[in-house]
């Protein structure tokens, strides 16, 4: 399964949007946090987990999804949210903790929920899996179309919830896909030190479902493999497990000194940055001209600037709003 030219451009656009989003957040995050770094300060306080480098996974998967399909994401959700079509203004406002944010500032960057496009998150590792399986079950029971995708990190494959959700999805044959973003690190602990198999695709066999590993952080290959799994799910043939090789170009969170990384790893990864790579490929393959790509990039920059302006100019919630929206 190969993406059409339009899909390729869509993928590139959303990778760039996501990267510009992270770059701007990274910059703004340090406002009020210098010279002394204190996580509590600045317009974007708290932990911040950026997705730089992992964009191909989000776009390779979401290129197959419509608003009605379900995505659950993790503590590192921006690339997935953007690819799924979460409202950028409201998402940015949520990250800034504004009244106009997705949940009016109650959630923050690890808790982005947009019902309009069936997007949700959990900051607890592995806890997006159950809700995704449940949403898939709900579609099956209601006879409604739609597949559910749970994005997790490779570290999450060692949570009990992973095993339980995979088995449940398989035994009930629900339209569900688990996509593991293998960036090789769970904070400071390497995949090698934490996971008994080098690749998690082999675990599909233990649930009697297909397992795939996609190498190279390559959006087209991801598109291909995920496309088949999604077609399978839509046809009622049940879940799949897909692990994708990717990498994070940022720290685990902002402020991470990354001393655990072997020397030279970061530089080697920067060489393999998927965005310039895709750019050259689009041109080499004759899918886009320099001008077209410049225009996509410029628009992405403007779109992110607009979202940030919206967020900055939005009103803070009233403090006492904390006490509302606890019950439906």
């Amino acid at each position, binding site marked *: 399964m190969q993406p059409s030219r339009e899909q390729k451009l869509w993928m590139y656009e959303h990778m760039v949007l996501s990267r510009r989003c992270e770059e701007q957040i990274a910059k703004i995050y340090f406002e009020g946090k210098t010279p002394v770094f204190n*996580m509590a300060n600045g317009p974007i306080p708290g932990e911040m987990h950026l997705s730089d480098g992992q964009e191909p996974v989000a776009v390779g998967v979401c290129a197959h999804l419509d608003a009605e399909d379900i995505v659950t994401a993790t503590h590192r959700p921006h690339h997935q949210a953007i690819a799924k079509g979460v409202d950028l203004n409201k998402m940015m406002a949520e990250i800034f903790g504004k009244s106009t944010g997705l949940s009016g500032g109650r959630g923050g960057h690890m808790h982005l929920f947009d019902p309009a496009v069936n997007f949700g998150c959990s900051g607890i590792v592995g806890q997006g899996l159950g809700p995704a399986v449940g949403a898939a079950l709900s579609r099956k029971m209601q006879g409604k179309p739609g597949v559910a995708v749970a994005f997790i990190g490779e570290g999450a494959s060692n949570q009990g919830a992973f095993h339980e959700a995979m088995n449940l999805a398989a035994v009930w044959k629900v339209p569900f896909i688990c996509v593991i973003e293998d960036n090789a690190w769970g904070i400071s602990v390497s995949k090698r030190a934490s996971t008994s198999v080098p690749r998690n695709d082999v675990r599909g066999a233990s649930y009697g479902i297909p397992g795939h590993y996609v190498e190279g952080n390559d959006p087209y290959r991801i598109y291909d493999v995920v496309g088949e799994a999604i077609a399978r799910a839509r046809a009622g043939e049940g879940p799949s497990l897909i692990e994708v090789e990717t990498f994070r170009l940022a720290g685990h969170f902002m402020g991470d000194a990354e001393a655990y990384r072997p020397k030279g790893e970061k530089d080697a990864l920067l060489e393999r940055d998927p965005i310039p790579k895709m750019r050259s490929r689009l041109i080499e393959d004759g899918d886009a001209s320099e001008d077209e790509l410049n225009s996509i990039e410029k628009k992405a920059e403007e779109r992110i600037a607009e979202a940030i302006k919206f967020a900055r100019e939005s009103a803070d919630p009233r403090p006492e709003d904390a006490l509302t929206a606890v019950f439906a």
Partner: protein
Amino acid sequence: MTESNDRKLTIARAMAESVAQEMRADERVFVMGEDIGALGGVYGNTRGLLEEFGDERIRDTPISETAFIGAAVGAAQDGMRPVVELMFVDFFGVCFDAIYNLMAKNIYFYGGSLKVPMVLMTSTGGGYSDGGQHSQCLYGTFAHLPGMKVVAPSNAYDAKGLMTAAIRDDSPVVFMYHKRLQGMGWLGTEAGATVKTPEESYTVEIGKAAVVREGADVTIVSLGLGVHHALKAAEQLSQEGTDAEVIDLRSLVPLDRETIRKSVAKTGRLIVVDEDYHSYGVSGEVIASVVEHDVSVLKASPARVAYPDVPIPFERGMEQFCLPNVEKILAAYQEMKSA
């Protein structure tokens, strides 16, 4: 004493020093948890241990809390003395069975003949906009369930002594440390938590509260970060001529009800400051300890300054609105006085 005893430590370093000393003295002590090796713990409390003891005894785990906390229970029952870390107390949800159905109950199921000498250390608290899954205290949740001792220090001296006592205890101890007291630069820290801490090994008895400020007019009971709010409030009250007594619970299980009762019998007024949720928690328990014993000592209804019963919001203004602080303690006292 010696000059070394004038040295001040952060809670993070006090915890690490206690664990290191116990590991040197007892080969059965080992540490497991996420990012406790090379990283030295997200909150710094295992820094330096991997370098000294190696990865056989300082074990970075997969993100598998059910497995490694359950494994700690098994190892403890088999003669080891594990210290395990649950990175944020909020993550208890994925592994609570190992904690409250195994760790906390197995001694009882063996009719008291079994030892489960393990320490579960876990970070608590918010106030830095980390959102609803990374900011809770959950003191009451842990203290409610029988079979585990629970401690929550407010300063490095107590942290070291309680950790040493916890490691030497033959029953499971939950060691709840507040992130904003750890002395991690990137989180901002309460200066009052970094105190003189002797280099030599010592214990602080589990189950004993400390009267950290004596006074005759009102008793303020708290734990962890709340103790520092209470001390600051007491300082302000003293400028208005009110003499507040401040009790640092230090232990939740066993709870030192005697010290609380004695103090309230003297002052007649009680304010409990707790960053955990308002209802069904520590604050209610402390008040009940007094009123069910002798309600006649009270000159006014007791008050609690606790976290409202809502999930913790991300946004700074909303979160700060909910958190206990000095002003809320002073307001509680004003209301009490005018009642």
